Protein backbone atom coordinates (compact mmCIF):
# COMPACT_ATOMS: atom_id res chain seq x y z
CA UNK A 1 0.00 0.00 0.00
CA UNK A 2 1.29 3.44 -0.86
CA UNK A 3 2.37 5.61 2.00
CA UNK A 4 2.09 8.76 -0.10
CA UNK A 5 -0.06 11.46 1.37
CA UNK A 6 -3.33 12.31 -0.29
CA UNK A 7 -2.89 14.67 -3.22
CA UNK A 8 -3.81 18.22 -2.26
CA UNK A 9 -5.96 18.75 -5.33
CA UNK A 10 -8.32 15.98 -4.21
CA UNK A 11 -9.25 17.63 -0.93
CA UNK A 12 -9.93 21.27 -1.79
CA UNK A 13 -12.88 22.95 -3.44
CA UNK A 14 -11.74 21.58 -6.84
CA UNK A 15 -11.93 18.02 -5.52
CA UNK A 16 -11.27 15.34 -8.14
CA UNK A 17 -10.00 17.86 -10.62
CA UNK A 18 -6.43 17.06 -11.57
CA UNK A 19 -4.00 19.90 -12.19
CA UNK A 20 -4.02 20.92 -15.83
CA UNK A 21 -0.87 19.15 -16.91
CA UNK A 22 -1.43 19.13 -20.67
CA UNK A 23 1.28 21.55 -21.70
CA UNK A 24 3.59 21.28 -18.70
CA UNK A 25 7.25 20.44 -19.18
CA UNK A 26 8.86 17.17 -18.14
CA UNK A 27 10.57 19.02 -15.29
CA UNK A 28 7.23 20.46 -14.15
CA UNK A 29 5.31 17.16 -14.17
CA UNK A 30 8.28 15.52 -12.50
CA UNK A 31 7.99 18.05 -9.67
CA UNK A 32 4.25 17.36 -9.34
CA UNK A 33 4.92 13.63 -9.19
CA UNK A 34 7.55 14.03 -6.51
CA UNK A 35 5.38 16.44 -4.48
CA UNK A 36 2.54 13.89 -4.59
CA UNK A 37 0.31 16.41 -6.32
CA UNK A 38 -0.42 13.95 -9.07
CA UNK A 39 0.35 10.29 -9.67
CA UNK A 40 1.81 8.83 -12.82
CA UNK A 41 -1.41 6.87 -13.26
CA UNK A 42 -3.43 10.10 -13.16
CA UNK A 43 -1.01 11.77 -15.55
CA UNK A 44 -1.18 8.79 -17.88
CA UNK A 45 -4.98 8.64 -17.79
CA UNK A 46 -5.09 12.35 -18.55
CA UNK A 47 -2.91 11.77 -21.65
CA UNK A 48 -4.97 8.75 -22.70
CA UNK A 49 -8.18 10.79 -22.33
CA UNK A 50 -6.72 13.51 -24.54
CA UNK A 51 -5.67 10.93 -27.10
CA UNK A 52 -9.19 9.46 -27.11
CA UNK A 53 -10.72 12.89 -27.54
CA UNK A 54 -8.37 14.53 -30.02
CA UNK A 55 -6.60 11.81 -31.96
CA UNK A 56 -9.56 10.67 -34.05
CA UNK A 57 -8.99 13.93 -35.96
CA UNK A 58 -5.27 14.32 -35.43
CA UNK A 59 -4.18 10.74 -36.22
CA UNK A 60 -0.86 11.16 -34.45
CA UNK A 61 -0.97 7.68 -32.92
CA UNK A 62 -0.91 4.44 -34.90
CA UNK A 63 -1.30 2.35 -31.79
CA UNK A 64 -2.16 3.31 -28.22
CA UNK A 65 -0.68 0.99 -25.59
CA UNK A 66 -3.09 1.98 -22.84
CA UNK A 67 -2.83 -1.18 -20.72
CA UNK A 68 0.95 -1.18 -20.83
CA UNK A 69 1.04 2.54 -20.07
CA UNK A 70 -1.18 2.21 -17.01
CA UNK A 71 0.84 -0.78 -15.84
CA UNK A 72 4.10 1.14 -16.24
CA UNK A 73 2.55 4.16 -14.52
CA UNK A 74 1.44 2.02 -11.58
CA UNK A 75 4.97 0.65 -11.31
CA UNK A 76 6.37 4.19 -11.41
CA UNK A 77 3.99 5.27 -8.65
CA UNK A 78 4.99 2.31 -6.50
CA UNK A 79 8.68 2.94 -7.08
CA UNK A 80 8.51 6.66 -6.40
CA UNK A 81 6.51 6.01 -3.24
CA UNK A 82 9.22 3.59 -2.16
CA UNK A 83 11.92 6.16 -2.77
CA UNK A 84 13.17 4.58 -5.96
CA UNK A 85 13.72 7.47 -8.36
CA UNK A 86 14.88 6.61 -11.86
CA UNK A 87 15.36 10.24 -12.81
CA UNK A 88 13.49 12.99 -14.63
CA UNK A 89 11.54 10.68 -16.99
CA UNK A 90 10.25 8.42 -14.22
CA UNK A 91 6.47 8.18 -14.52
CA UNK A 92 6.33 10.58 -17.48
CA UNK A 93 4.18 9.56 -20.49
CA UNK A 94 6.04 9.52 -23.79
CA UNK A 95 5.53 7.98 -27.24
CA UNK A 96 7.71 6.49 -29.96
CA UNK A 97 7.78 6.94 -33.70
CA UNK A 98 6.68 3.59 -35.06
CA UNK A 99 10.11 2.61 -36.32
CA UNK A 100 11.60 2.09 -32.87
CA UNK A 101 11.31 -1.63 -32.16
CA UNK A 102 9.15 -2.41 -29.15
CA UNK A 103 9.24 -5.91 -27.69
CA UNK A 104 5.85 -7.57 -28.07
CA UNK A 105 4.27 -4.48 -29.68
CA UNK A 106 3.80 -4.23 -33.44
CA UNK A 107 6.27 -1.91 -35.14
CA UNK A 108 5.14 -1.03 -38.64
CA UNK A 109 7.17 1.95 -39.89
CA UNK A 110 3.71 3.05 -41.12
CA UNK A 111 3.94 0.54 -43.95
CA UNK A 112 1.93 -2.45 -45.13
CA UNK A 113 5.30 -4.16 -45.58
CA UNK A 114 5.81 -4.42 -41.81
CA UNK A 115 2.17 -4.51 -40.77
CA UNK A 116 2.53 -7.82 -38.93
CA UNK A 117 5.97 -7.38 -37.43
CA UNK A 118 6.09 -7.82 -33.66
CA UNK A 119 9.71 -7.41 -32.53
CA UNK A 120 11.27 -9.81 -30.05
CA UNK A 121 13.48 -7.09 -28.66
CA UNK A 122 13.32 -3.42 -27.82
CA UNK A 123 15.39 -0.92 -29.72
CA UNK A 124 18.24 0.48 -27.62
CA UNK A 125 16.33 3.75 -27.27
CA UNK A 126 13.14 1.94 -26.22
CA UNK A 127 15.12 0.03 -23.60
CA UNK A 128 16.80 3.20 -22.33
CA UNK A 129 13.44 4.89 -21.91
CA UNK A 130 11.96 1.85 -20.12
CA UNK A 131 14.95 1.83 -17.79
CA UNK A 132 14.45 5.54 -17.14
CA UNK A 133 10.92 4.75 -15.98
CA UNK A 134 9.15 6.53 -18.84
CA UNK A 135 5.58 5.44 -19.57
CA UNK A 136 4.95 4.33 -23.16
CA UNK A 137 1.60 5.69 -24.39
CA UNK A 138 1.96 4.16 -27.83
CA UNK A 139 3.48 4.22 -31.28
CA UNK A 140 3.30 7.30 -33.47
CA UNK A 141 2.42 7.88 -37.10
CA UNK A 142 5.20 8.69 -39.52
CA UNK A 143 5.98 8.86 -43.20
CA UNK A 144 6.29 5.34 -44.55
CA UNK A 145 9.75 3.96 -43.75
CA UNK A 146 10.74 7.53 -42.80
CA UNK A 147 10.82 8.58 -46.43
CA UNK A 148 7.48 8.58 -48.14
CA UNK A 149 4.79 11.16 -47.84
CA UNK A 150 1.09 11.12 -46.91
CA UNK A 151 -1.02 9.15 -49.33
CA UNK A 152 -4.20 7.11 -49.66
CA UNK A 153 -2.47 3.74 -50.05
CA UNK A 154 -1.02 3.46 -46.55
CA UNK A 155 -2.32 1.31 -43.69
CA UNK A 156 -2.94 4.26 -41.37
CA UNK A 157 -4.15 7.81 -41.96
CA UNK A 158 -1.53 10.57 -41.95
CA UNK A 159 -0.96 12.64 -38.83
CA UNK A 160 -2.30 16.17 -39.16
CA UNK A 161 -0.94 19.48 -37.98
CA UNK A 162 -2.70 20.47 -34.75
CA UNK A 163 -2.33 24.15 -35.63
CA UNK A 164 -4.50 23.58 -38.68
CA UNK A 165 -5.74 20.11 -39.54
CA UNK A 166 -5.73 20.95 -43.25
CA UNK A 167 -1.95 21.29 -43.12
CA UNK A 168 0.79 18.69 -42.92
CA UNK A 169 2.75 18.35 -39.67
CA UNK A 170 5.98 17.74 -41.59
CA UNK A 171 7.82 14.47 -41.78
CA UNK A 172 8.91 11.96 -41.40
CA UNK A 173 8.36 12.09 -37.61
CA UNK A 174 4.91 13.50 -38.27
CA UNK A 175 3.05 11.85 -35.39
CA UNK A 176 5.77 12.84 -32.93
CA UNK A 177 5.45 16.51 -33.87
CA UNK A 178 1.66 16.46 -33.93
CA UNK A 179 1.21 14.60 -30.63
CA UNK A 180 3.60 16.88 -28.77
CA UNK A 181 2.14 20.10 -30.14
CA UNK A 182 -1.35 18.90 -29.23
CA UNK A 183 -0.22 18.12 -25.68
CA UNK A 184 -0.90 14.39 -25.93
CA UNK A 185 2.46 13.35 -24.47
CA UNK A 186 5.45 14.98 -22.79
CA UNK A 187 8.21 13.65 -24.99
CA UNK A 188 8.60 11.64 -28.16
CA UNK A 189 11.29 9.98 -30.18
CA UNK A 190 11.95 10.71 -33.82
CA UNK A 191 14.48 9.73 -36.42
CA UNK A 192 16.26 12.09 -38.78
CA UNK A 193 17.94 11.15 -42.07
CA UNK A 194 17.46 14.44 -43.90
CA UNK A 195 15.53 16.53 -41.38
CA UNK A 196 12.81 14.22 -40.09
CA UNK A 197 13.07 15.38 -36.48
CA UNK A 198 13.66 19.06 -37.15
CA UNK A 199 11.10 19.50 -39.95
CA UNK A 200 8.07 18.35 -37.95
CA UNK A 201 9.42 20.22 -34.92
CA UNK A 202 9.44 23.42 -36.98
CA UNK A 203 6.03 22.86 -38.59
CA UNK A 204 4.37 21.90 -35.29
CA UNK A 205 5.98 24.58 -33.10
CA UNK A 206 7.99 22.32 -30.81
CA UNK A 207 11.67 21.48 -30.25
CA UNK A 208 13.60 18.56 -31.67
CA UNK A 209 17.30 17.74 -31.68
CA UNK A 210 19.19 15.54 -34.07
CA UNK A 211 22.26 14.51 -32.09
CA UNK A 212 25.74 13.89 -33.45
CA UNK A 213 26.11 10.74 -35.57
CA UNK A 214 26.95 7.96 -33.14
CA UNK A 215 25.68 9.77 -30.04
CA UNK A 216 22.44 7.77 -29.79
CA UNK A 217 22.27 4.09 -30.68
CA UNK A 218 20.29 3.15 -33.79
CA UNK A 219 20.06 -0.51 -32.82
CA UNK A 220 16.48 -1.61 -33.36
CA UNK A 221 15.51 1.45 -35.40
CA UNK A 222 14.24 0.51 -38.88
CA UNK A 223 16.95 1.91 -41.19
CA UNK A 224 16.57 4.28 -44.10
CA UNK A 225 20.18 5.26 -44.80
CA UNK A 226 23.04 3.92 -42.71
CA UNK A 227 25.23 6.91 -43.50
CA UNK A 228 22.73 9.52 -42.36
CA UNK A 229 20.19 7.95 -39.95
CA UNK A 230 20.01 9.45 -36.48
CA UNK A 231 17.64 8.86 -33.58
CA UNK A 232 16.75 11.75 -31.32
CA UNK A 233 14.24 13.37 -29.01
CA UNK A 234 11.40 15.79 -29.60
CA UNK A 235 9.61 17.76 -26.90
CA UNK A 236 7.84 21.04 -26.27
CA UNK A 237 10.91 22.71 -24.82
CA UNK A 238 14.69 22.73 -24.97
CA UNK A 239 15.21 21.49 -21.41
CA UNK A 240 12.88 18.56 -22.08
CA UNK A 241 14.94 17.68 -25.17
CA UNK A 242 18.06 17.76 -22.99
CA UNK A 243 16.49 15.46 -20.40
CA UNK A 244 15.35 12.99 -23.05
CA UNK A 245 18.71 13.11 -24.83
CA UNK A 246 20.47 12.40 -21.54
CA UNK A 247 18.48 9.20 -21.13
CA UNK A 248 19.26 7.81 -24.58
CA UNK A 249 22.86 8.94 -25.19
CA UNK A 250 25.90 6.75 -24.84
CA UNK A 251 28.00 4.07 -26.43
CA UNK A 252 26.29 0.92 -27.66
CA UNK A 253 28.80 -1.76 -28.67
CA UNK A 254 26.02 -3.53 -30.59
CA UNK A 255 25.63 -0.55 -32.96
CA UNK A 256 28.64 -0.40 -35.28
CA UNK A 257 28.14 3.34 -35.76
CA UNK A 258 27.90 4.14 -32.06
CA UNK A 259 30.57 6.47 -30.73
CA UNK A 260 32.46 5.79 -27.51
CA UNK A 261 32.54 9.42 -26.41
CA UNK A 262 31.75 10.51 -22.85
CA UNK A 263 28.24 11.93 -22.36
CA UNK A 264 28.20 15.29 -20.57
CA UNK A 265 25.38 16.63 -18.40
CA UNK A 266 23.10 18.27 -20.97
CA UNK A 267 21.20 20.43 -18.49
CA UNK A 268 23.97 21.85 -16.30
CA UNK A 269 25.00 24.64 -18.68
CA UNK A 270 21.64 25.30 -20.27
CA UNK A 271 21.22 28.73 -18.72
CA UNK A 272 24.67 30.04 -19.62
CA UNK A 273 23.40 32.20 -22.46
CA UNK A 274 25.00 33.23 -25.73
CA UNK A 275 26.96 36.28 -24.64
CA UNK A 276 30.30 36.18 -26.41
CA UNK A 277 29.42 33.36 -28.77
CA UNK A 278 29.96 33.71 -32.52
CA UNK A 279 27.09 32.48 -34.66
CA UNK A 280 27.58 31.84 -38.38
CA UNK A 281 24.94 32.79 -40.93
CA UNK A 282 25.31 31.30 -44.44
CA UNK A 283 23.53 34.28 -46.01
CA UNK A 284 23.54 33.11 -49.62
CA UNK A 285 21.78 29.92 -48.55
CA UNK A 286 18.66 31.91 -47.65
CA UNK A 287 18.25 33.16 -51.21
CA UNK A 288 19.36 29.97 -52.98
CA UNK A 289 16.92 28.94 -55.71
CA UNK A 290 13.53 30.42 -54.89
CA UNK A 291 14.78 31.23 -51.39
CA UNK A 292 12.74 31.34 -48.24
CA UNK A 293 9.27 32.84 -48.09
CA UNK A 294 9.03 36.47 -46.89
CA UNK A 295 7.44 35.43 -43.60
CA UNK A 296 10.25 32.96 -42.87
CA UNK A 297 12.84 35.59 -43.83
CA UNK A 298 11.20 38.09 -41.50
CA UNK A 299 10.98 35.62 -38.60
CA UNK A 300 14.63 34.67 -39.11
CA UNK A 301 15.84 38.27 -39.07
CA UNK A 302 13.86 38.86 -35.87
CA UNK A 303 15.44 35.73 -34.37
CA UNK A 304 18.91 36.96 -35.32
CA UNK A 305 18.18 40.32 -33.71
CA UNK A 306 17.15 38.48 -30.53
CA UNK A 307 20.37 36.46 -30.46
CA UNK A 308 22.42 39.60 -31.13
CA UNK A 309 20.57 41.36 -28.34
CA UNK A 310 21.58 38.53 -26.03
CA UNK A 311 25.24 39.20 -26.78
CA UNK A 312 26.01 36.86 -29.66
CA UNK A 313 28.16 38.06 -32.55
CA UNK A 314 26.66 37.30 -35.95
CA UNK A 315 29.14 36.38 -38.66
CA UNK A 316 28.40 35.73 -42.34
CA UNK A 317 29.94 32.43 -43.49
CA UNK A 318 30.25 30.79 -46.94
CA UNK A 319 27.20 28.91 -48.20
CA UNK A 320 28.23 26.39 -50.92
CA UNK A 321 28.79 23.42 -48.61
CA UNK A 322 25.42 23.99 -47.01
CA UNK A 323 23.65 24.35 -50.34
CA UNK A 324 25.18 21.23 -51.88
CA UNK A 325 24.51 19.04 -48.85
CA UNK A 326 21.02 18.27 -50.11
CA UNK A 327 22.36 16.62 -53.27
CA UNK A 328 24.79 14.46 -51.31
CA UNK A 329 22.14 13.56 -48.75
CA UNK A 330 19.71 12.42 -51.45
CA UNK A 331 22.19 10.67 -53.74
CA UNK A 332 23.70 8.55 -50.98
CA UNK A 333 20.48 8.21 -49.02
CA UNK A 334 18.39 6.92 -51.92
CA UNK A 335 21.05 4.36 -52.86
CA UNK A 336 21.20 3.04 -49.32
CA UNK A 337 17.40 2.99 -49.01
CA UNK A 338 17.21 0.91 -52.16
CA UNK A 339 19.90 -1.40 -50.85
CA UNK A 340 17.96 -2.02 -47.62
CA UNK A 341 14.63 -2.55 -49.37
CA UNK A 342 15.91 -4.30 -52.52
CA UNK A 343 14.54 -7.75 -51.78
CA UNK A 344 11.12 -6.39 -50.83
CA UNK A 345 11.06 -4.24 -53.96
CA UNK A 346 11.80 -7.34 -56.04
CA UNK A 347 9.14 -9.56 -54.51
CA UNK A 348 6.51 -7.47 -52.71
CA UNK A 349 6.72 -3.96 -54.09
CA UNK A 350 2.94 -3.67 -54.33
CA UNK A 351 2.91 -3.43 -50.55
CA UNK A 352 4.71 -0.07 -50.59
CA UNK A 353 2.74 3.08 -51.26
CA UNK A 354 3.18 4.16 -54.85
CA UNK A 355 4.98 7.31 -53.82
CA UNK A 356 7.54 5.47 -51.73
CA UNK A 357 7.99 2.70 -54.26
CA UNK A 358 8.90 5.27 -56.93
CA UNK A 359 11.26 7.01 -54.53
CA UNK A 360 13.06 3.84 -53.44
CA UNK A 361 13.29 2.50 -56.99
CA UNK A 362 15.28 5.59 -57.96
CA UNK A 363 18.12 4.08 -55.96
CA UNK A 364 18.34 1.15 -58.36
CA UNK A 365 19.48 3.54 -61.10
CA UNK A 366 22.23 5.29 -59.15
CA UNK A 367 25.51 3.76 -60.27
CA UNK A 368 28.13 2.52 -57.89
CA UNK A 369 30.41 5.25 -59.20
CA UNK A 370 27.85 7.95 -58.43
CA UNK A 371 27.26 6.52 -54.96
CA UNK A 372 31.00 6.69 -54.26
CA UNK A 373 31.04 10.21 -55.68
CA UNK A 374 28.27 11.11 -53.24
CA UNK A 375 30.23 9.63 -50.35
CA UNK A 376 33.39 11.46 -51.35
CA UNK A 377 31.47 14.71 -51.67
CA UNK A 378 30.01 14.03 -48.23
CA UNK A 379 33.53 13.83 -46.78
CA UNK A 380 34.54 17.07 -48.52
CA UNK A 381 31.39 18.91 -47.41
CA UNK A 382 31.88 17.70 -43.84
CA UNK A 383 35.45 18.96 -43.92
CA UNK A 384 34.36 22.36 -45.25
CA UNK A 385 31.60 22.82 -42.64
CA UNK A 386 33.95 21.63 -39.88
CA UNK A 387 36.40 24.27 -41.06
CA UNK A 388 33.68 26.95 -40.92
CA UNK A 389 32.86 25.80 -37.40
CA UNK A 390 36.42 26.59 -36.32
CA UNK A 391 35.59 30.26 -36.93
CA UNK A 392 32.15 30.31 -35.28
CA UNK A 393 30.55 28.41 -32.40
CA UNK A 394 27.41 27.38 -34.29
CA UNK A 395 25.48 27.90 -37.51
CA UNK A 396 22.03 29.47 -37.38
CA UNK A 397 19.39 29.24 -40.10
CA UNK A 398 15.68 28.77 -40.54
CA UNK A 399 14.69 25.11 -40.18
CA UNK A 400 12.41 25.19 -43.21
CA UNK A 401 11.99 27.66 -46.03
CA UNK A 402 8.20 27.80 -45.67
CA UNK A 403 5.47 27.10 -43.17
CA UNK A 404 3.67 23.76 -43.41
CA UNK A 405 1.89 23.14 -46.72
CA UNK A 406 -1.72 22.15 -47.01
CA UNK A 407 -2.36 18.45 -47.61
CA UNK A 408 -4.05 19.31 -50.88
CA UNK A 409 -1.29 21.63 -52.12
CA UNK A 410 -0.70 20.84 -55.76
CA UNK A 411 2.69 20.67 -57.36
CA UNK A 412 3.33 24.02 -59.07
CA UNK A 413 3.57 24.08 -62.85
CA UNK A 414 7.10 25.42 -62.52
CA UNK A 415 9.08 23.47 -59.90
CA UNK A 416 9.95 25.56 -56.85
CA UNK A 417 13.44 24.99 -55.46
CA UNK A 418 13.84 25.97 -51.83
CA UNK A 419 16.94 25.70 -49.64
CA UNK A 420 17.14 22.41 -47.74
CA UNK A 421 18.23 23.70 -44.37
CA UNK A 422 18.22 20.40 -42.55
CA UNK A 423 20.43 18.31 -44.88
CA UNK A 424 23.89 19.57 -43.80
CA UNK A 425 23.53 18.21 -40.27
CA UNK A 426 22.84 14.75 -41.71
CA UNK A 427 25.67 14.92 -44.23
CA UNK A 428 28.16 16.09 -41.61
CA UNK A 429 26.66 14.12 -38.74
CA UNK A 430 26.85 17.29 -36.63
CA UNK A 431 24.16 18.06 -34.03
CA UNK A 432 21.29 20.42 -34.85
CA UNK A 433 18.16 21.51 -33.06
CA UNK A 434 14.98 23.21 -34.20
CA UNK A 435 13.12 25.47 -31.79
CA UNK A 436 10.00 27.56 -32.29
CA UNK A 437 11.10 30.81 -33.93
CA UNK A 438 7.99 32.56 -35.20
CA UNK A 439 4.45 32.25 -36.52
CA UNK A 440 2.87 33.14 -39.84
CA UNK A 441 -0.69 32.58 -41.00
CA UNK A 442 -1.37 30.70 -37.77
CA UNK A 443 1.43 28.21 -38.43
CA UNK A 444 4.79 27.85 -36.65
CA UNK A 445 8.23 28.68 -38.04
CA UNK A 446 11.40 26.98 -36.79
CA UNK A 447 14.87 28.26 -35.99
CA UNK A 448 17.73 25.80 -36.49
CA UNK A 449 21.02 25.82 -34.59
CA UNK A 450 23.77 23.48 -35.73
CA UNK A 451 27.01 22.87 -33.85
CA UNK A 452 30.26 20.98 -33.79
CA UNK A 453 30.28 17.20 -33.28
CA UNK A 454 29.41 16.10 -29.74
CA UNK A 455 28.69 19.70 -28.74
CA UNK A 456 24.99 19.05 -28.15
CA UNK A 457 25.32 20.89 -24.83
CA UNK A 458 26.31 24.11 -26.61
CA UNK A 459 23.56 23.71 -29.23
CA UNK A 460 21.03 23.21 -26.44
CA UNK A 461 22.41 26.19 -24.54
CA UNK A 462 22.02 28.52 -27.53
CA UNK A 463 18.53 27.17 -28.16
CA UNK A 464 17.60 27.66 -24.51
CA UNK A 465 18.84 31.25 -24.54
CA UNK A 466 16.67 31.96 -27.57
CA UNK A 467 13.68 30.13 -26.08
CA UNK A 468 13.98 32.04 -22.82
CA UNK A 469 13.89 35.35 -24.65
CA UNK A 470 10.90 34.57 -26.84
CA UNK A 471 7.35 33.36 -26.28
CA UNK A 472 6.84 31.14 -29.35
CA UNK A 473 7.24 27.94 -27.31
CA UNK A 474 4.44 29.04 -24.97
CA UNK A 475 1.88 29.15 -27.79
CA UNK A 476 -0.31 26.09 -28.26
CA UNK A 477 -2.65 25.05 -31.05
CA UNK A 478 -6.38 25.68 -30.71
CA UNK A 479 -7.23 22.00 -30.58
Amino acid at each position, binding site marked *: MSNRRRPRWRTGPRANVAPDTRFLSIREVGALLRKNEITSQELTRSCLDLVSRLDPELHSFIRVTADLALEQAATADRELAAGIDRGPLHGVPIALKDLFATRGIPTTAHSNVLLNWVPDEDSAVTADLRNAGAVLLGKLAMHEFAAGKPGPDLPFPPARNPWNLEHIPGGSSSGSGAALAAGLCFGAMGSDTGGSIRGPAAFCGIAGIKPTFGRVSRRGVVPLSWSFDHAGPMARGVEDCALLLQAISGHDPLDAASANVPVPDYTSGLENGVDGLRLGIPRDWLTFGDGVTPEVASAFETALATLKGLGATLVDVPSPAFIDSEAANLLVGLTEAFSYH*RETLRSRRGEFSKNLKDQF*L*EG*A*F*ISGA*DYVLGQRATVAIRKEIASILTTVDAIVSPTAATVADRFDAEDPATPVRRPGFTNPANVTGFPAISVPGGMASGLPIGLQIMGRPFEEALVLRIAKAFESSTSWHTMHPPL
Partner: protein
Amino acid sequence: MPGDEALTIETMRDLAQQAGLALTDEELRDVMPGVARNRARAKLLEKWVTQDVEPATAALANGSEG
Protein backbone atom coordinates in the same frame (compact mmCIF):
# COMPACT_ATOMS: atom_id res chain seq x y z
CA MET B 1 29.66 2.69 -67.14
CA PRO B 2 26.18 2.44 -65.56
CA GLY B 3 24.85 5.91 -65.00
CA ASP B 4 26.47 7.39 -68.10
CA GLU B 5 23.93 6.03 -70.59
CA ALA B 6 21.32 8.29 -72.17
CA LEU B 7 18.17 8.01 -70.13
CA THR B 8 15.72 5.96 -72.17
CA ILE B 9 13.17 3.34 -71.22
CA GLU B 10 15.43 0.74 -72.83
CA THR B 11 18.53 1.70 -70.85
CA MET B 12 16.48 1.92 -67.68
CA ARG B 13 15.02 -1.53 -68.32
CA ASP B 14 18.55 -2.90 -68.67
CA LEU B 15 19.69 -1.22 -65.48
CA ALA B 16 16.63 -2.47 -63.63
CA GLN B 17 17.32 -6.01 -64.78
CA GLN B 18 20.92 -5.71 -63.58
CA ALA B 19 19.45 -4.83 -60.18
CA GLY B 20 17.21 -7.90 -60.33
CA LEU B 21 14.05 -5.89 -60.91
CA ALA B 22 11.49 -6.69 -63.59
CA LEU B 23 9.77 -3.32 -63.82
CA THR B 24 6.93 -2.49 -66.18
CA ASP B 25 7.31 0.36 -68.65
CA GLU B 26 4.83 2.34 -66.58
CA GLU B 27 6.97 1.85 -63.48
CA LEU B 28 10.08 2.86 -65.41
CA ARG B 29 8.38 6.00 -66.72
CA ASP B 30 7.25 6.94 -63.21
CA VAL B 31 10.78 6.66 -61.88
CA MET B 32 12.47 8.40 -64.81
CA PRO B 33 12.21 12.02 -63.52
CA GLY B 34 13.77 11.02 -60.23
CA VAL B 35 16.57 9.17 -61.99
CA ALA B 36 17.30 12.29 -64.03
CA ARG B 37 17.39 14.38 -60.86
CA ASN B 38 19.88 11.98 -59.26
CA ARG B 39 22.15 12.20 -62.28
CA ALA B 40 22.02 15.99 -62.01
CA ARG B 41 22.90 15.69 -58.32
CA ALA B 42 25.94 13.56 -59.15
CA LYS B 43 27.09 16.15 -61.70
CA LEU B 44 26.63 18.92 -59.15
CA LEU B 45 28.73 17.08 -56.59
CA GLU B 46 31.68 16.47 -58.91
CA LYS B 47 33.14 19.82 -57.91
CA TRP B 48 33.57 18.58 -54.34
CA VAL B 49 35.74 15.67 -55.37
CA THR B 50 39.31 16.77 -55.88
CA GLN B 51 41.78 14.39 -57.42
CA ASP B 52 44.85 16.31 -56.32
CA VAL B 53 46.18 13.58 -54.11
CA GLU B 54 45.93 10.91 -56.79
CA PRO B 55 49.06 11.07 -58.97
CA ALA B 56 47.66 9.28 -62.02
CA THR B 57 44.74 11.70 -62.38
CA ALA B 58 46.43 14.12 -64.77
CA ALA B 59 47.58 11.31 -67.03
CA LEU B 60 44.10 9.82 -67.11
CA ALA B 61 42.50 13.18 -67.81
CA ASN B 62 44.93 13.80 -70.71
CA GLY B 63 44.50 10.35 -72.11
CA SER B 64 48.26 9.84 -71.91
CA GLU B 65 50.17 7.11 -70.23
CA GLY B 66 52.52 9.65 -68.65
